[in-house]
C-alpha cells in the first residue's frame, strides 16, 4: 500500500482539529458552567430546560402573588380581630345596660359609647392596602363605608358581594379578604343596623329591648368570628401553597441543572483524555515528518 506524505498530513490535521474542537468545547463547558448553552448543543435538553424554566417563572409569579395576598389578608385579619374586640365591648356595655342598676344617664353615656365604637368600626373596616380598600369587595377603588344619616344604620355600604382574590395557580384564585357586604350581612340583620338599634334602645333607656337584643349582638359576633376564621383558613392555605411552590421550585431547578449544567468531574476527565491525545498527536507528527529520505541523501 502506498502511503504518501499527504495522507499522513491529512490524517494528522483531521485528528488534531478534532482534538482541538473537543478541547474548545470542554473549555467553554467548564468556564461557563453550562453544557447546553444553545439549542444546537442538545436540542432536547435545551427545550426541556426552557419549558421548565418557564414553569419556574410562572410559579415564582404565583408566589409573589401569594405573598402580596398574604400581606393584605393578614391586614384584613387584624381589622377583623379588632372588629370582634369592639363588638365584644358593645356586648359588655349591653349587659350592663340591661341590668336594673343602670339608670337613664348611664344608658345615654353607653349609647354615646356605642356610637363611638360604631364610628371606629367604620374606620377599622375602611382599612386599605395601597390604593385598595380591603373590605370593599371588588369595588375597592372607593371607601366601602361612609356615614350617611339617611342610610339604614347610619352607614352607607358601597361594597359589593365579591371578595377580592389573587391568582394562586393555573385557573385558581383564592379570596384574601371578606367583602364588606358579606361581613355586614349577619343573620340578625345588617351589622350597622343592629348597632344603631342597640344605640337607640340604650338612648331610649329601654332595658327590655337591650336585653332582647343581647342575642342579636351574639349573632353578630358569631357571624364576624365565622368570617374571620374563614379568612384565617384561606391565609393558612396561602401559606401552605407558598411552601409547596418553594419545594417544587427546588426540584425543578435541580431538573434544569441536570439538563444543562456541566458535570465538572466528567468534563475534567474528558479534558485529561483529550489533552493526552492532542499532545501525542503533536509529538508523533513532528517525529514522523522528520523521517524523510532527504536526510540520508
Amino acid at each position: 500500500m502506498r502511503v504518501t506524505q499527504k495522507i499522513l498530513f491529512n490524517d494528522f490535521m483531521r485528528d488534531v482539529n478534532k482534538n482541538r474542537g473537543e478541547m474548545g468545547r470542554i473549555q467553554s463547558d467548564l468556564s461557563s458552567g453550562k453544557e447546553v448553552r444553545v439549542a444546537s448543543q442538545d436540542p432536547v435538553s435545551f427545550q426541556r430546560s426552557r419549558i421548565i424554566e418557564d414553569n419556574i417563572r410562572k410559579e415564582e409569579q404565583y408566589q409573589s402573588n401569594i405573598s402580596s395576598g398574604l400581606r393584605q389578608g393578614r391586614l384584613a385579619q387584624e381589622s377583623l380581630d379588632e372588629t370582634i374586640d369592639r363588638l365584644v365591648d358593645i356586648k359588655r356595655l349591653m349587659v350592663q345596660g340591661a341590668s336594673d342598676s343602670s339608670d337613664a344617664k348611664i344608658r345615654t353615656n353607653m349609647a354615646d359609647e356605642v356610637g363611638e365604637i360604631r364610628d371606629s368600626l367604620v374606620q377599622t373596616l375602611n382599612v386599605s392596602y395601597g390604593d385598595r380598600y380591603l373590605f370593599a369587595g371588588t369595588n375597592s377603588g372607593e371607601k366601602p363605608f361612609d356615614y350617611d344619616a339617611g342610610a339604614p344604620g347610619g352607614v352607607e355600604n358601597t361594597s359589593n358581594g365579591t371578595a377580592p382574590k389573587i391568582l394562586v395557580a393555573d385557573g385558581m384564585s383564592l379570596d384574601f379578604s371578606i367583602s364588606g357586604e358579606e361581613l355586614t350581612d349577619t343573620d340578625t340583620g345588617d351589622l350597622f343596623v343592629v348597632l344603631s338599634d342597640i344605640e337607640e334602645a340604650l338612648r331610649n333607656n329601654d332595658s327590655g329591648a337591650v336585653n332582647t337584643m343581647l342575642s342579636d349582638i351574639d349573632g353578630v359576633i358569631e357571624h364576624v368570628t365565622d368570617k374571620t376564621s374563614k379568612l384565617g383558613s384561606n391565609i393558612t392555605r396561602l401559606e401552605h401553597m407558598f411552601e409547596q411552590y418553594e419545594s417544587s421550585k427546588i426540584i425543578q431547578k435541580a431538573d434544569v441543572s441536570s439538563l444543562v449544567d456541566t458535570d465538572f468531574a466528567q468534563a475534567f476527565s474528558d479534558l485529561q483524555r483529550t489533552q493526552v491525545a492532542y499532545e501525542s498527536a503533536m509529538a508523533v507528527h513532528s517525529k514522523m515528518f522528520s523521517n524523510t529520505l532527504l536526510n540520508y541523501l
Partner: protein
Amino acid sequence: MKTLFEISRSGLKAAERSLSTTSNNLINADTPGYSRQRVNQEPAGMRFSDRAAGLGVNMTGISRLRNEMADIQLNDKRQNMGYMQEKAKVFEQMEAFMATDSGHDLDLQISKLFDSFSELSSDPQDNSVRNNLVVEAEQLTDKFGDMSRNLDKTSDLVRESVHTNVQRVNKLIDELASLNKPIVQGGSADKPDHHSLDLRVKKLEELSELINFESQVQDNGKLELRVNGIQILDGENAMDIKSEVDDVNKVYRLRLDNGKIVDPNGGKLGADIEMYEQEVPEMKQRLDAVAETLVTRFNELHLQGYGLEDGTQRNFFNPTNVSASSIELNDVIKNNHQHIAASSVEGEAGNGDIAAGIANIRNENLISGRKVTDYAVDLISKPGENLSNVRAQMEARDSEIQMLKTQQERESGVNIDEELSLMIKYQNAYQGAAKAMQAAQQMYDTLLSIVR
C-alpha cells in the same frame, strides 16, 4: 558497434525524461488535482540474421495514474457535504439571533408578559404593576420585530449567496468547456494532455461543492455535465445559468440560455435555494403565527374587560397589525396604562378576572395544539435542532470523504520518499548510459589509433 551509441543515447534520453517526470512529481506533491506521472518504457530490439539483439530503450509515452471511479464518488460526497455545510452556516446564523445563551429570548418575553398579567390580576389597582406590564409588552413586540427583521436579513443574505454561487458555477463551467478542447485534441492524437486533465479534476472538485451534477466522459475525453437530467455542459458548449428571483413569493429560478430550468438539490447552491424558498420563510411563518395568536387571543379577552377610568372596552394589541414585523400595542393603552382591562365588571377597580383570564392563556393549547410558550421554545430551538442534525451527518460524510481521498491519494498521490529514491535510480541509470557511451568512444579511439 555503432549500435552502442544508439543504445547509450536512448538510455541517456530515457533517464533524463524519467528524471524530469520525477522532478515534476516532486514539485507538484502538494498541488490540488495533480496526479503522479510515470514514463512508460519498452525494450527496443532488432532481429538480425543470426540473432535478436537489444537496441536500447523506447519511451512509449507518459502515463497519468488516477482512480477515476474514486473521483466520481468523491464529487458525489462533496456536493452533499457542500450542501450540508451551507445549511449549517445559515442555521448557525439563525440560531445566533433566535436562541441565545443569555436566555433573553422570545419564550422569556412571552412568559414575562403572562407573569405581568398574573400580577395585575392580583393587584389590579397598582399603577406600577400596570407600567411594568406595558414595558414587558413593548419588549415582547420589540423582540418580535427584531426576530422578524433578522429573518428577513438572513433571507437577503441567502439570496445574495445564491447569486454569487451562480456566478461561480458559470465561471467554472466556462473553464471546464475551454479545457475540453486540448483534452479532446490530445486524446485523439494519443498524447493525452495530463496537465489539462488534472485541471479538469480540480475544477470539477470546486464545482461539486457548489452544485450537484452527473458527469459523463466520452471515449475521446469530451466531458458532459447534467444537473438533474438537464444538460449544462456539452464539450466546448457551456450553458450560462441566469437567476430569476421573486422576492415576494420567495422563488429562485435558475434558467439556462435555452430556456430550460435547472433545479439543483445539492451543493451550496441547492442548500441556499432550499433555505431561501423553504426554511427561512417557514420560520417566519411560524413566528408570525405566534404573533397573530397572541394578538387575537389577548384582544378577544381584553375586549371583554374594563379599565380603571371608563366603560370603554378596548383592544390590547393593535388588531390590524398581526404579523411579527408589525405587532404593536394599542396606542390608547400605551398612552394611558389605566385603560388596561383587568376587570370583568365596569367600575370595579379591585376586580382582576380579565387579567387572570389573560394570564391563563399560557395554559391554553392555542397553536397546533400546543401552549404558546412551548411553541415559542420549539420555534427558537428549531435552527439549533436542524444544526445539530446536519452536524452529525457532516461528521459521517466527512469520514467517508476522508476515506475516498485516501484511496485516491494512494493511487495518484506523490510519495516524496519514493520519488527521491527514483531520482537516485534514474541518476544511476544516466551514469550507466554515459559510461556505456564512454566505453564505445574508447573503442572507437582504439580502432582509430590503429589507422593513425
